[in-house]
């Protein structure tokens, strides 16, 4: 006997049709028919009366259906998963990143994970924080890396912190400063993504104290656009240091005191996940606890 035979039997019983059961199970109708035949032979009874237009359970079939339904209730899906769990050589994983999410820890993790599990296909999608949270809730993605840790529907694993720095063009008046305080930004034009509400919120308290208030301009979506606009002298921006310090067109200046923004890997609190998602979560936990060298 195989678990799938019972799964097919339950589906055919519920839908009263081999064809519809096959459609629902995404397999061919002969596969369902053969599996049920095999089960009937092993049991030595006829489970379905096929003489009618619509198939019906025989009286013994009804008893068997109730028994199997009781036995499989609440465990069938997980037992099937266990049965299919041969190894992790396969599967797919979709990871969401925010515009600023693909930083150090996040990219290191993805790189190392792909090295260890080359057969798991990893797809990255980039969206703003709100969309990623929506996707996580709807289980369109397996995990996401972003800066927020407030949503109780998710488990958050702290990956690390990124320093936020001011960046300006090479001939900006701030260019020679080693550090800068928020008050110095009074009246400046700040280029910041419209989608990074959380990011803006994170530094809001510091910005609110600036007098006169800086002006937020353009609101581009992509980091590259922000950097290009800054490089052209259109304004200044506040970005994770790692995103702009290697850009020779830009000058990166730390705030005084320095500010850091934590990044998290988040996944939805659900009881069952794909093997690939389970593997990724365990990998990240181990990565965070032990570091890449120990993996």
């Amino acid at each position, binding site marked *: *006997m195989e678990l799938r035979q019972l799964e097919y039997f339950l589906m055919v019983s519920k839908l009263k049709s081999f064809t519809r059961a096959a459609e629902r199970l995404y397999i061919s109708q002969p596969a369902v028919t053969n599996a049920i035949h095999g089960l009937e032979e092993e049991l030595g009874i006829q489970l379905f009366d096929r003489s009618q237009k619509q198939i019906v359970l025989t009286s013994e079939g*009804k008893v*068997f259906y109730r028994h199997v339904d*009781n036995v499989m209730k609440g465990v069938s899906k997980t037992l099937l998963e266990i049965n299919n769990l041969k190894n992790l050589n396969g599967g797919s994983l979709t990871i969401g990143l925010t515009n600023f999410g693909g930083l150090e820890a996040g990219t290191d993790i993805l790189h190392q994970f792909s090295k260890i599990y080359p057969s798991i296909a990893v797809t990255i999608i980039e969206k703003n924080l709100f969309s990623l949270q929506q996707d996580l809730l709807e289980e369109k993605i397996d995990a996401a890396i972003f800066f927020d840790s407030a949503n109780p529907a998710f488990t958050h694993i702290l990956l690390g912190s990124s320093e936020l720095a001011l960046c300006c063009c090479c001939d900006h008046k701030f260019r020679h400063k080693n550090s800068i305080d928020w008050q110095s930004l009074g009246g400046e034009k700040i280029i910041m993504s419209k989608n990074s509400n959380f990011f803006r919120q994170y530094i809001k308290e510091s910005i609110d104290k600036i007098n006169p208030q800086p002006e937020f301009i353009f609101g581009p979506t992509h980091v590259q656009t922000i950097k290009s606009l800054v490089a052209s002298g259109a304004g200044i921006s506040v970005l994770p240091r790692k995103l702009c310090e290697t850009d020779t067109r830009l000058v990166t200046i730390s705030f005084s005191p320095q500010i850091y923004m934590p990044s998290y890997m988040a996944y939805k609190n659900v009881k069952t996940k794909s093997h690939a998602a389970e593997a990724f979560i365990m990998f990240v936990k181990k990565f965070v606890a032990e570091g890449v060298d120990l993996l």
Partner: protein
Amino acid sequence: MMPAIAAVGSNQLIANEICLLTENMLNSKVPVSCFRTDEIKTSPLLDFYICAPTQYEKLCHTISPKNLFIFELIPTSTFFLKIARIPAESTVYVFNNLLPYTQTLIAYCHSLGITGLHFEAIAYESMEESEISFHLKKAEYIIGVDRFVGSEALLSPHYRQYLRDDVRIIAAKRTASVRSSCVFLHALAVFYYTQAEHKYNQLLQSASLTEASALAMKELAFKTDNAINMIRTASVQIIANQIDLSAKESTAEMPDYAAHSIAEEDIPYFARIVNDLLLTFAILNKKLEYISK
């Protein structure tokens, strides 16, 4: 990595029943010893003890609850299918030593939609002999747990004399419920996982780049692979047992690393395989933990 497992029963019959169930679940890959409850105090300490619910109270004073597991015993599908074939309106006698389990069996039948029969209980340890013989003489259909309707009780000379020639006896082969089986299986999986992880860390720490270390790592990969395969097959067998069928054993394909030659520089290669298997095992444990709750 082999765990020591004991099946415990109030008498040898029950101990044997639990022993067979456990061996069957584990596809006879792990030996199981049998003990009566009164023998446990003097027996050596083992990793797992499995008993029926009635023995738990007595045993939990001697055995740590983390080593003690219950198998809730329930009849298989075949038993109910045979009862379903009895003509409607017939009177069916439920034969057992005590009354409560007869009620349990009747309730199981009703819950499965077997409602067209009249059930009468015969609890031979709590009824007068005259009442028992009165019922048995009339009985055309008798159902009950196999050890009570077999040669030890119903078919013993004592009761056999009362039975009709055309009596039809339906014996229930019992099996452990899915939930109680999963609790044990999860603990067993954790046992194997912990052993494998411990050995893995030991081998990594020894860090001697010798052929023997590479061989030890390869052997650990094999053992871990086998343990995973056994637990996976057992998880299907748990369901198959309910239906009185055999689970098809998971085909243990020869892993790629089996053909890999042993050389000292291969330690990282085998270590990576063990690491991968441990992760698979950890996921398997998590899934078992979920269904055993």
